[in-house]
């Protein structure tokens, strides 16, 4: 074992130029693997984050929608206790109204939030671009897209007509930008009690919205199922996955294509190493013949090449990880949006990188099986006789 290892290192060292080129070759393959993997993962994370990061991932509503949820305080506590992966829970009162201003009108979705809870989901306080948060009854926030359309400014008063034809006056205390045009034109945000009062609804909510921790986003459906089974038939539970099938199929398509690319990169790395190692056996067949004449066993002569594969794999993996991280760093440093943020924020997952490195080492070992077998079957007499 020790002898095989020392012969392997000596073989590699004696041809250091070739060894470095092989290591670089493996390294480039692995770096591409790591870079593409991090890029796709980053892309998916940012897509998911943009799509559902600031929205309700699991929503509980009353089975008969118009009834609303009156027991929401207990229900909120119950839901929190069901699954520790649920990190934010926000009871909300929503209703549709018609806004009238300066002779023009449009429909609005009035959303009544407990800001301390809803902020965790919608990050409203970060989204305010002008004015302050609503505090008193009748104070509302509108989306930034309405500013230009109606010429609104903070302090303006609008009329909101409820489904019961009641006309209520509301004061605009600020504007938000949630980065989604549809929300910026149709949402009217206010406090929960203000919304309840506006629509004369009493102390009920229409939905309880929640978010799960970042690592459980894709388990939302399972968590939703669990919540549904615990809180009973009076409530309906929906999750983002059921409502975003297209996004999900897009993501899985992307994952598969990225996996394909990675598999083929790996395959070409393996083939490259296998052929290079096969050539080294040819180069070293004379030495193997001499060693066998001196009594080295077939197993030991195979081990020489397995060790070569292992050493090349380890150094190749390290080079690949460094190169890949370097590539990722330069990509995030140079490929920028006009505002200076990276085009795609790469997701550097240590587990993924360790896995890529591990696969590289394994692939090199696998590739060295061919030359190892060749070395084992080499007959010293062929070398001695043919000189």
């Amino acid at each position: 074992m020790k002898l095989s290892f020392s012969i392997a290192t000596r073989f590699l060292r004696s041809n250091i130029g070739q060894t470095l080129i092989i290591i670089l070759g493996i390294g480039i393959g692995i770096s591409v693997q790591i870079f593409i993997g991090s890029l796709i993962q980053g892309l998916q994370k940012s897509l998911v984050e943009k799509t559902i990061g600031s929205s309700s991932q699991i929503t509980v509503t009353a089975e008969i929608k118009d009834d609303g949820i009156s027991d929401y305080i207990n229900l909120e506590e119950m839901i929190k206790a069901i699954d520790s992966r649920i990190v934010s829970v926000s009871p909300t009162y929503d209703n549709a109204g018609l806004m009238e201003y300066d002779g023009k009108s449009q429909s609005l979705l009035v959303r009544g939030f407990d800001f301390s809870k809803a902020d965790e989901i919608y990050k409203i306080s970060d989204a305010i671009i002008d004015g302050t948060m609503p505090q008193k009854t009748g104070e509302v926030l509108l989306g930034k897209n309405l500013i230009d359309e109606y010429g609104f400014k903070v302090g303006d008063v609008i009329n909101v007509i409820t489904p019961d034809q009641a006309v209520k006056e509301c004061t605009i205390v600020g504007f938000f930008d949630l980065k989604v045009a549809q929300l910026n034109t149709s949402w009217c945000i206010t406090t929960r009690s203000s919304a309840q009062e506006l629509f004369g609804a009493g102390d009920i909510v229409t939905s309880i919205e929640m978010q799960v921790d970042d690592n459980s986003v894709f388990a939302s459906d399972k968590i939703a199922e669990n919540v549904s089974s615990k809180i009973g038939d009076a409530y309906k539970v929906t999750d983002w996955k059921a409502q975003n099938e297209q996004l999900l199929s897009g993501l899985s398509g992307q994952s598969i294509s990225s996996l394909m690319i990675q598999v083929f990169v790996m395959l070409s790395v393996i083939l490259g190493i296998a052929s290079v190692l096969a050539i080294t056996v040819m180069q070293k067949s004379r030495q193997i013949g001499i060693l066998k004449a001196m009594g080295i066993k077939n197993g030991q002569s195979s081990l020489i090449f397995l060790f070569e594969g292992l050493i090349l794999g380890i150094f190749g993996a390290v080079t690949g990880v460094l190169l890949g991280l370097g590539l990722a760093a330069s990509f995030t440093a140079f490929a920028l949006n006009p505002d200076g943020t990276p085009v795609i924020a790469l997701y550097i997952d240590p587990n993924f990188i360790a896995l890529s490195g591990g696969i590289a080492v394994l692939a090199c070992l696998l590739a060295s099986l061919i030359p190892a077998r060749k070395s084992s079957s080499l007959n010293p007499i062929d070398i001695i006789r043919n000189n």
Partner: protein
Amino acid sequence: MENVLELKGVNKIYGTSVKTQVLTDINIAFEKSSFSSIIGQSGSGKSTLLNIMGTLDTPTNGQVFLNGVDTAKASKNTLAELRNKSIGFVFQFHYLLPEFTALENVLMPYRIGGGKVNKEITDKAKEYMALVGLEKVMNNNATKMSGGQQQRTAIARAILNNPDIILADEPTGNLDSDSTENIYTLLRDINMRLGTTFVIITHDRHIAEKADRIIEIADGRINLDIRKT
């Protein structure tokens, strides 16, 4: 005297469709501490015979006994061990490992045999290298030595494990006459001092005559077997 190596009825045929009989009915034995030479024309089969004696090649039929062990019945690993412990090879083209220094080459059979390189064995290797006059180039890379130095390194390597028998195939084939003379003197000296058995192939009759026993191979048969008295 006890036989180190014995061949009984050895035949060697090459080829399957066109058969070439290289060796025919070879019966020969070598006693312990003997010094024999094998002569014969090119293509007479002497190298094949030596390779069969060294278990590198196998006879088509017939038996080879090394220290009384029938090599045909031994496994590949046993044969490898046998070669490592009992046989030392010196080939015409010295066959050193170019990646290693002269000293490392000399130590190689010992390491293959599973030995740990310690001061004792290193000193022994150095002593043998001094014996063959290589004390000054011990740490040179194998490729950075003259032909004669490489050949002498190969001899030091062959004797390090104190094998029972050393098989040498034209060990001086590509050396000048002075070096040739030196190397034979050296081999003879080792034979005397360590009691190692030698079988040496040569095409040089002048050299062959210095051996205790001369075996001539012609057309794959033993033509002559002369012992000096």
